[in-house]
Each structure stands twice: as C-alpha cells, then as structure tokens.
C-alpha cells in the first residue's frame, strides 16, 4: 500500500516540484495543501504517513503546523519534515524542538529530498 504524504507549501511551483520529486519514488502519493489552514482541513480527511511543511507561510506558520500535529491526540504520531532556508536557523531549531523529525534547506536537489523522506519513513 502506498504511503500518503501531505505537502504544506504556499508556493505552487515549490509544491508541484516537491510532489514530482516524491512521486518519482515508488509507493508514495502526495496531497497538496497551499496553506496551513488548508492542511488543518485536510488532516481529518485522510490518514497521512508524513507531513512536509514550509515554515514561512501566511495565515499560520509551519512551526504552528508542527506544534498542532504534535499536540493533537489524533495526529501526534505523524512524523514531520520542515522546509527551511539558510537564514532561518532559529526557526529550524524551534521546529526540531517542537517535534519535527528532519529538516531540508531550500534550494535542495531531487535526491536530497528523496533521501530525507526515506530516512523518516523508509
């Protein structure tokens, strides 16, 4: 059975690139959320195996997505990968402290992302 990954990212280009990279790997299907709000709405609809979220988003930020998932009785077991940039080291540390399993820094290469995903839900 293929694993389900929720990608939370407000840039449509970035989102579809991540989706394309992940779907190159076998046995993964991607659901895309264009904002934190959208992610909150999608969470109860499917059972996700992994969430990949950007940090810098309007409405609610990625740290809040991590915190929400990790403190929610229904979702706290879902692992998360945060997408950060080289400038936001503080945010990355906070994300890991809140319970994110891994981070990946933009811009990243195909195999970098694939490797991180495999490491988390291999």
């Amino acid at each position, binding site marked *: 059975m293929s694993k389900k990954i929720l990608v939370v990212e407000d*840039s449509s280009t970035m989102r579809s690139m991540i989706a394309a990279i992940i779907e190159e790997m076998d046995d993964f299907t991607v659901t895309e959320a264009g904002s934190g709000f959208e992610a*909150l*709405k999608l969470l109860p609809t499917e059972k996700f195996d992994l969430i990949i979220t950007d940090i810098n988003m309007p409405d609610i930020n990625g740290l809040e997505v991590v915190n929400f998932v990790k403190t929610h009785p229904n979702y706290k077991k879902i692992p998360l990968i945060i997408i950060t*940039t080289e400038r936001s080291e503080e945010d990355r540390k906070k994300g890991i402290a809140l319970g994110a399993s891994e981070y990946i820094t933009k*811009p990243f290469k195909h195999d970098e992302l694939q490797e991180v995903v495999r490491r988390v839900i291999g």
Partner: protein
Amino acid sequence: MEDKKKDEPYLEFIAEAEEILEVISKNLLTMEESQDRLSPHPDIINAIFRGVHTLKGIAGMMGFNNITELSHTLENMLDAMRMGKLTLTSVVIKVLFESTDMLRKLIENVSKDGNDNIDTSRLLSDIVNILKKKPEAAAVHKLEELDLDANVLKVLTEYENHRLEENLRLGANIFEITAGFSLETFDKDLNQINSMVSGFGEVITTLPSSGASPDIGIEFKLIIGTKEDLNYVTSILSGANVKIREIKYQRKNEKIKPGSEHEEAQAAESPSSVKSLSMTVRVNINRLDRLLNIVGELVLNKAVITHISKNLRAIEGYSEWAIELEKAARTLDKKLNELQEGLMEVRMVPLNNLFDRLTRMARKLSRESGKIIDIRIFGEETELDRLMIEEVADPLMHIVRNAVDHGIETQEERIKLGKNEIGTIKLSATQKGGHVVIEVADDGSGINIKRVKDIAVEKGLIALNSSLTEKEAIDLLFTPGFSTSKVVTEVSGRGVGLDVVRKNLIKLNGTIDIETKEKAGTKFIITLPLTLMILKALIVQVADDIFALPINSVSESLMITKRDIQTVERREVIQLRERTLPILRLEDAFDMKSKDVNPDSMYVVVVGSGNRKIGFVVDALLGQQEIVIKSIGKILSGIQGVAGATELGNRKTVLVLDVAALIEESVQEYKEEVKG
C-alpha cells in the same frame, strides 16, 4: 532549453513568478500612496519580503541564478527592514522599485528565451551599499517575562518574535484571543476576526490547537498588539464568541539591591510603558474627579478655618486657643497641600496618546493634500493632567492642521526652493518646572511678516506707518478680525482661527508664542501649567461684588487717584512707567452701579502681557487665595468675561473673571468707537 520550456514546473514557475511580482508591486504602491510611506504597516514589508523569499526559493530550484542572486540580496535587505535592523528611506524605496522592474525583466527573459542572462550588477551593488549602513540598535525585551503561555513563544518564527518585541517597544497592549470553531468554517470565521483586529491593531500570530473536542472542532489563539485597551478590544470583538485576555509584563528580579549596576542596566532595558503594565492600577477618571472635588471642598474648609483663626486672634489676641487654632490651621494647610499634590500626580498621564492622535490626523491630512510629510515625535512620555490633555487637544489639532495645510509647501515647491522634498513636522513636549511646554515646529514656508503688517493696515487694525516689532506683528495673528481674512489664508495661512486657539489656551492658564523665519518654518510654543483645577487668585471687590482673578494673569496692582486717569481718544488711560495703559472699569464691564461714582482713590490691577496689557479698576484688593474653579451653570455660561465660579472661605460664591475675554472685549469696543 526548448524542452525545459514545456516542462510543467517551468510553466508553473513563470505563472507564479508573475503572480509574486504583482503582489510585490501592489504592496509597493500601497506603501507609496500612504502618506507615512517611510513607516508603512509591518504587513506591507512582510508581504514584499515573503514574495521575494518565495521567488528566491523557486528560482533557486529551477537554476535561474541571476533571479536567485538578485532576490537573495533583496531578501537580505527586506529581512533587515522587517526585523527593524534597517530604516526605510527614500533611497531604499527607489531601490525596491528598480529591483521589481529588474525582476520583471528577468522573468520576461526567462519566458521568452528560457534564460535570465541580464546584467544586474549595478542594482546588486546598490542594495549591498544600503546593507552596509550600520544597523540600528534594537531594544532588548525579555519575552519570557510576558505572562504568555510558554508554548506560544515556542512556535513564533523569528519575524513574529520581532513583531511582538516591536509592539512592546512601542508601548502597545498585547492581548490573547481564544476562540473555538468547527473544522468546516474555521478559516472564514478566523478571517472575520482578523479583519476586525486589523482595524485597530496587528495580528502577531495565529496559533491552532486541538482544543477540548479534537474530532469536531479546532481552537485558535491569536496574539494581537494594539494601542487600544481591554475595554475597547472587548467591545469590538463582542459579537464574536471569543475569550480575551490581556498579556501583562511580569518583572522578575524585582528585589535587587538599590544602586547595583545590574539594576541600572535592568531599568534601562525595560521601557517605561512596559513597566507600567505591571506597576500601575487603572482608575476611572471620574473617581479621581470625585476625590479632587473633595480636596477642593477641603481647601475651602481650610480657608474657613484660617478665617476663623484670624478673627479669633483679632478678638482674643495671642490666647491659648488662638495659638492652638492657628497651629492646627497651618498643619492642615501643609497636609492639604501634600494631598493635593499627590492627587494631581495621580491624574498625570503621558502625552503619547494625544501625540498619536495628532500624528494620525496629520498623516491623513497630508495624504489628502498630496504633500509628503515626515512627522516626528519627541518627549511623548511627558505627563500632563488628564483633563488638560483633553482641553489642549483641539488647539493642538488646529495648529497641526495649519502646519500641514499652509506651513509645509508642496513637493514641487520644496524642490524648487532647494529644500528636502519631504517636509517635517516636529511635535515635542518637555516639562519645565511647574509647566509643560509643547512645541509644534514645521520646516515649511514660515510667516511673511510684511504681508501680515500690510493686511493689518488694510483691515484697520494698525495705523499705516505704525512701527511694529516682529513680535508685535506676529501677535496680530491672534486678533479675531484677522482670522476671517481669506487673503491671509492664501498668503500665510496662519491667521485662521488662531484667536480661538489662544482663547482656549488662556482658559487653561496657558500661553502661546510663535517663532517664525520666512522660508525656513514656524514653531508654535504652548506653555501649560501642570494642573488645571486649583489655582491662586487675587480677590478683588468692585462695588458690592467680589471677583477672583487668576494670579498668573496679573502682573501688578497699584493704587491711583482719580487725577491719574486721563482720556485719550475717548478712552480712559493711565501712565504706567512712561507707557500708556488703557483701563477698564469692571463696574462698567458688568453694568454694575458703583456705590461711590467717583471715589478719590482706587486700585488698578494690571493684567495681560505684551502689548495687550490693560488695567482693571477695582474698589479694593482683598488678598490672594487658592481657589477651585467650578463651571457655572448653562444659564450663566454665555456671559462674556466670566470663566467660572468659586467659593471663598466665608462660603460666599464669587465669579472668576476670564481675563483674556475681558481684554478682547475692551479692545473690540475701543476699535468700534474709533471707527464710529
């Protein structure tokens, strides 16, 4: 390349890049159109930052190096701006516009030729130069000492952290709004609350949590910053089903030995406004008014006791009782003074709210008039009696409005004159002894003294060849006749309603002065006493009636005989140290009948200042006394020349004279007589 152009991510990139540029342009325009373009809403800068940030990310993924490099450098600049490390200047705005144009060119190139090979080095070095400027030292705030759920701080991004600190630095109040929603509608519900909040403050963060019933609903905490208080926030959000809590600052390390360096450092770090959150009690002003009224009545009672004490001594001489009573009266006097001062201190509030209101108004007006004005504020922490602040608001609004409308020139004019194209209005306040000095200074056109004189001649206010000093000429602007002149509005714009401004300020026992330099600007200097209600007065008798004159409008009093009075141009005057001083018989002013129509000797109380001095003729001087001015009822309020009423020690109610109005009236009558 041809293959790449057909890629889905490639097409997606072009589409999104165009969208981002549109968002950036829109925000730049909003910033440019708002008059306070050098201090835009933080959301504007953040939106531009976010756009550039996303563009950098996706261009990097696609391998467009020039776009990545430019947006990366630009992102550095925008990040410094949004984090308060770089001040927005006209140069920065210019670079922002140029960069947006360049990014658009680069993306057009990508969509046309599949590459971004355009030289961007000049623009890059411009941005790098801006970034070289030293960052401003930002105040350090201990967010951990906020009465905030520790989990909230854990999820704030660096930027949100900064916004929270910035709100604290600017003295805003922080609130936590908690609300539960259904999973289906929470986004719409939240947007509604967001738009309500953005009307009076800033949403710093929106924090979701699973809440009580995780399967059907979701709970949100919003942290907001606003200048408004809890009552206001509650009233605005009363329709929404939310819980509101004010986040206070809890000072730790409270018990450090006085004088230690550590404490001093601590004191320097915590801004006064934040400190006040934990150290103050909010009291309704009505309660303070009630207390002050009681003190006022006590002051009157004290006067009764002093009165009795004096009488007793007159009757009994230095008897035991007379001495005891005198001692008791003196102690009462001293303690009452202390109580009064203490209460006055409690009523003092900082001027920052009023200054904020003035700034908002000035920005709105300058937007409407299409002028670019930088409004600067100094000394907004200076305190003034709460009531005084309300009373001085209108005169200040008037002066600021004049400065925007008529003081500051249009951008084109300023450029033509070689001035900075951005005009400046400086609002400042300082305490000097028992007074507060508020200044409104603009770097506009100044007042054309010659034109003022010409108009005064035209209007018959002064004789054709009268020699006036500059100060006397400026004083003419406060003449009522002057203000209505349209010509003046066009020429200097300074005459409009200034007589009313001065009248209002004099009612507060304040003064107003103008300093002006043609083409360089004008400064209005307002001096106000710290408190309003209780003042020293000279008590005078006119015929059978007694009046009180605020002592600060009295410069001296003298005794004259009827032979000292001369008549010049049908007007009674006396000679006072080689100057002619017009006199006003108060019994005439109030249509009273004097007992003795022509007494041999009488008193003259000299009031007013500068060339607006006048002598009030009274029958007797009864001494000085502290009085509490109370407003007179509506029926009497229309009477010219009366500022209010007060009770004296012998429980007699007397009228307090409005010195300024009486001077005005007398000058007007004189003019009419001369004309007639």
